[in-house]
């Protein structure tokens, strides 16, 4: 099995004709994801040329795309100024999972979009996230397909490339993944660690979890508490930003130590106190996961 995306995923790509949207649509189709529709306002009626002559119909709105193709998942490559609106459009069209790749969406826009998604019972992953991949099943977003392989480990991360770094070590060591989920680096994200942990807990096939956090906020601390109170399978953790200075935003809008709160130290401490094995280096994740799986 897998979480969030899998064999049932029918994907609509919002912003399919843009630079990033078109590039990654090809990648997703090559990976085998069922990309059933694209949306670019004003380009309805055109066709996106996929690999091997496969064509994806383009619609003016997500609404039409859903009506015509039965899409149930969307991925958003729309520019920041319109991305929150694109998320709202997908939610309104009864898309149940909206994966928002776009970086730099105004925070107050997202406050509204998240409220709208909550009201409609839809899940937003991100924004400013690399997306999600269930190896061998479906890839939605930008996580490279060649670094993952099917297996028993669930991966959750606030980061993009750091996730790849961790995952490629697992794959090279022969440790496959059920699903790898990038929850995003923004201040306001739709799906947090606990949401994904819950999904992994309900997934029959996930036997261990890798959780990659970073400085800023208290999501990791809450996740640690949730793990201690609710989770039966082992978790290995890593936190980036031990050398980050307070008060400075480290790339991600959400990666900032406010006063003395949100440091890597307190997050690692929370992990350890909740029985989560903490890796010192990304490469150490492999050994910890292997011993967890064989325990």
């Amino acid at each position, binding site marked *: 099995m897998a979480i969030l995306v899998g064999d049932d995923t029918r994907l609509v790509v919002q912003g399919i004709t843009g630079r*990033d949207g078109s590039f*990654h649509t090809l990648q997703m189709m090559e990976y085998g994801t069922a990309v059933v529709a694209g949306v670019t306002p004003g380009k309805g009626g055109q066709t996106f040329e996929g690999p091997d002559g496969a064509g994806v119909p383009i619609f003016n709105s997500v609404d039409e795309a859903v009506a015509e193709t039965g899409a149930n998942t969307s991925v958003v490559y729309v520019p*920041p*100024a319109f991305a929150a609106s694109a998320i709202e459009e997908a939610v309104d069209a009864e898309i149940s999972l909206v994966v928002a790749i776009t*970086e*730099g*969406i*105004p*925070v*107050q*826009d*997202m*406050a*509204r979009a*998240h*409220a709208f998604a909550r*009201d409609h019972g839809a899940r937003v992953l991100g924004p400013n996230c*690399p997306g999600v991949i269930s190896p061998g099943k479906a890839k939605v977003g*930008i*996580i*490279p397909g060649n*670094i993952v392989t099917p297996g028993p480990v669930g991966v959750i991360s*606030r*980061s*993009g*490339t*750091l*996730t*790849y*770094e961790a995952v*490629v070590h697992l794959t090279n060591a022969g440790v496959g993944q059920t699903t790898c989920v990038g929850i995003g*680096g923004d*201040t*306001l994200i739709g799906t947090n660690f606990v949401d994904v942990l819950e999904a992994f807990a309900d997934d029959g096939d996930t036997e261990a979890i890798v959780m*990659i956090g*970073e*400085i800023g*906020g208290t*999501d990791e601390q809450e996740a640690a508490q949730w793990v201690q109170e609710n989770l039966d399978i082992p978790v290995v953790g*890593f936190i*980036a*930003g*031990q*050398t*980050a*200075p307070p008060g*400075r*935003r*480290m*790339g*991600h*809008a*959400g*990666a900032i130590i406010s*006063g003395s709160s949100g440091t*890597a130290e307190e997050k690692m401490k929370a992990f350890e106190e909740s029985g989560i094995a903490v890796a*010192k*280096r*990304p*490469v150490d994740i492999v050994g910890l996961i292997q011993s967890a799986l064989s325990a």
Partner: protein
Amino acid sequence: MDIHEYQAKEILRASGIPVPPGEIATTPDEAVAIAEAYGGTVVVKAQVHSGGRGKAGGVKLAATTSEVREHAENILGMTISGFTVGKVLVTPAEDIDTEAYVGVLIDRKAQAATFIVSAEGGIDIEEVAHSDPDAIHRLTVDPRYGLMRHQAYGLANSLYEDPALVKQAAKIIHQLYAAFTSSGASMIEINPLIVTVAGEVKAIDAKMSLDDSELFRHPALLEYRDLSAEPAAETKAREANLSYVKLDGNVGCCVNGAGLAMATMDLVKYYGGEPANFLDIGGSSDPEKVISALEIITSDSNVKVILINIFGGITRCDDVARGIVEATTRIDIEPPIVIRLTGTNDKEGLAILAEAGFSAFSSMDDVVERGVEMAKAG
């Protein structure tokens, strides 16, 4: 983007909030002229992007012209938390009866704007939160409804007993929320919100951060950016769409992705080195970005080695390789470069590097270990 007190006050004033007048001086003479125009006692306040200005001696009461001059001379040029004071705000002193705190910021957990108010103002709100948590009232504003009338009154009721003051404060809280949403702020703090002896509620100090992602909608606010208040390298990084934070070490880092960039810095430390900076070239594949990144890193004279760590995803390794080669021909890069390149199009990238005489590692640990070694040696 942080803005100065006097700029935040301009925004609050435009929203209708009672804020005493004030003008900016960059020289003691200007400060004296402004103070003389107001007459009476004034306050001379350092304008820097930092809290703790009072403790640092950056805020002084001046009853006479000679006091104004003396304080302006002392404060202008002073360094507070690493920022050099280039401007002072000169503002008439107020007869203060009580001081309160009113702030609004984006709360991650509530996913919405949240007010924090306290009848105990004028001091660091984190200290109040610590010493007397009951003195602090919080209210999350549902973005679907905005700040509702009864909520503004509820907050105002927690600040004052006197109905006349409650009414003024409720109005100010409304205006503050309007300023917050209309300027795309991520934080505004009025500390203190005072009651004058005449019974007027006024904002006499303000701090404000704007959401960088929303600035494109507010071109007028972009003018508030004070380039003199940030290092030239950070200005250059921002203009090139890079995230850069200078640190004190000597291993210059150039990484794609914020998480990987932080992990790279941490690994430098793990292997006994000290990172010279955080630098994220982002997800794009533009070779120009790599060139800007290398220029910025080399502008730091502490840097002994440049460590490039790329895991291609959106970023394509061949683009990065091209940028590295281009940069080394276009600009004079003194420190040695160590490279790790893997992921999307890595074969093409490695070929481009090889042609230009560079070799590259495929493991992050290897490249960091080597970089730290070279920094120590250099």
